[in-house]
């Protein structure tokens, strides 16, 4: 089972595109976190515990305590347990790095581009840029930790600086990067340029996967032709509507962390940590998500939560479908080329 704890609604950054909505001073208390952990421990099979926000490192002490409890529980029951955190990388000092290393936490670090791009796309709440600090922390994390995943939100303004940022990350040791297009943005003005950059990135990722230093760059890496030869490492797959719950600071349950937002949409809730989890509602939401994706023509790469997000989901689905097509058009020819080249080399 997978349990995600949203430790706080508060964040120290003010990213314009943030789907978590308005930030406010509400944190998860220890009792709610403990209830969430009980849910995880009372189930059977491997366990995955993740932390989200707001910025979860604003509640570092609680995160550390929950990890200690969880590890104790897993040891007593002899079950497999893995940890995951998604952070904006602004609060990542030596102490946090030691913690992440000790608990072998899969650490997803959000970063949008070179210093100047990051400054504009992800400023602090007082307007100051976060680029210099975040790059320093990300490079330190890549040097120190083994389980690092970089998340890059791609917007029409950041896409042109994507290549130098990906290059810098690769040179610093990154091997897992996910590109997440801003599905609410207006892409019409940069369509040609965006497609060309997408094609370059697909080539870089797929070629790198033929080497001993691969760059698993989502969404392209799933097109690699010989996954059984070069197994793709990474975090577990999303299990929306299955054995996966996200717990808001209030204790409300959701099928996905992206749907928590400001915790004011009862239509996408699936219960409360004290009352339990309505599996039938989770399944119904999954069906609604699947149906939305099918109608939107998203195909490979679409997330079931997109049709359930607030705002204009038609625009989001259209963009999701467009990026899925760009990805396929960019990755398939390289994939075939690699297959051919590998065949020639094998002879």
């Amino acid at each position, binding site marked *: 089972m997978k349990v995600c704890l949203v430790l706080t609604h508060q964040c120290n950054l003010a990213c314009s595109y943030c789907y978590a909505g308005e930030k406010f001073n509400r944190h998860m208390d220890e009792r709610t976190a403990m209830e969430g952990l009980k849910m995880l421990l009372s189930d059977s099979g491997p366990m995955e515990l993740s932390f989200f926000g707001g910025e979860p490192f604003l509640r570092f*002490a609680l995160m550390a305590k929950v990890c200690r409890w969880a590890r104790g529980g897993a040891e007593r029951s002899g079950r497999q347990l893995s940890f995951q955190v998604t952070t904006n990388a602004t609060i990542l000092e030596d102490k946090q790095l030691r913690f992440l290393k000790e608990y072998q936490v899969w650490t997803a670090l959000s970063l949008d581009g070179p210093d100047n791009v990051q400054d504009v796309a992800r*400023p602090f709440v007082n307007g100051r840029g976060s680029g210099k600090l975040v790059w320093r922390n990300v490079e330190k994390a890549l040097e120190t930790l083994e389980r690092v995943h970089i998340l890059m939100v791609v917007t029409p303004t950041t896409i042109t600086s994507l290549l130098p940022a990906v290059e810098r990350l690769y040179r610093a040791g990154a091997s897992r990067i996910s590109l997440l297009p801003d599905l609410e943005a207006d892409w019409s003005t940069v369509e040609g340029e965006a497609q060309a950059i997408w094609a370059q990135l697909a080539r870089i990722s797929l070629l790198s996967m033929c080497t*001993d*230093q691969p760059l698993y760059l989502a969404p392209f890496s799933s097109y690699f032709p010989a996954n059984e030869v070069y197994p793709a490492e990474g975090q577990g797959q999303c299990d929306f509507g299955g054995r996966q719950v996200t717990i808001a600071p209030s204790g409300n349950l959701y099928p996905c962390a992206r749907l928590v937002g400001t915790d004011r949409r009862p239509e996408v809730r699936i219960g409360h940590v004290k009352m339990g989890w309505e599996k039938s509602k989770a399944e119904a939401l999954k069906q609604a998500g699947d149906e939305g994706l099918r109608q939107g023509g998203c195909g490979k790469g679409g997330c079931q939560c997109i049709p359930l997000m607030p705002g204009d989901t038609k625009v989001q689905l259209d963009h999701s479908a467009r990026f899925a097509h760009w990805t396929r058009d960019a990755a398939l020819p390289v994939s075939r080329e690699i297959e051919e*080249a590998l065949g020639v080399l094998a002879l």
Partner: protein
Amino acid sequence: MSDGQRTRRRFLADLLFLGGALSAGAFLTQTEAQAPGTTPTPASTPVTPPTNPPVVRGQYVASPSPDGDVAVPQASSTCAPVVKGEPQPPTPPESFESQPKEVPLAGSPSPPRK
């Protein structure tokens, strides 16, 4: 990352981010040639000293240091460590759970000064 991995990654990054469309065949051939097993080690120090460059008239030539002008400190083998005070208990494992009640938000506006 080890030094070898760093060198290898630099080599691959140079190829991958070269610009233009590098074909899969060309890429595989080049990377095979520099496969991890055959990663060249850093150039070793030449056995024979390099020949001195010709001295240009009027150029300052540094004279070699005369032998014996550097005193190497000798380690004393009879010096036993001096233990003072009581034996210290082992350092307890680090606690990650202490945190002030309110963490100041990095980058948040400073409180107004009086």
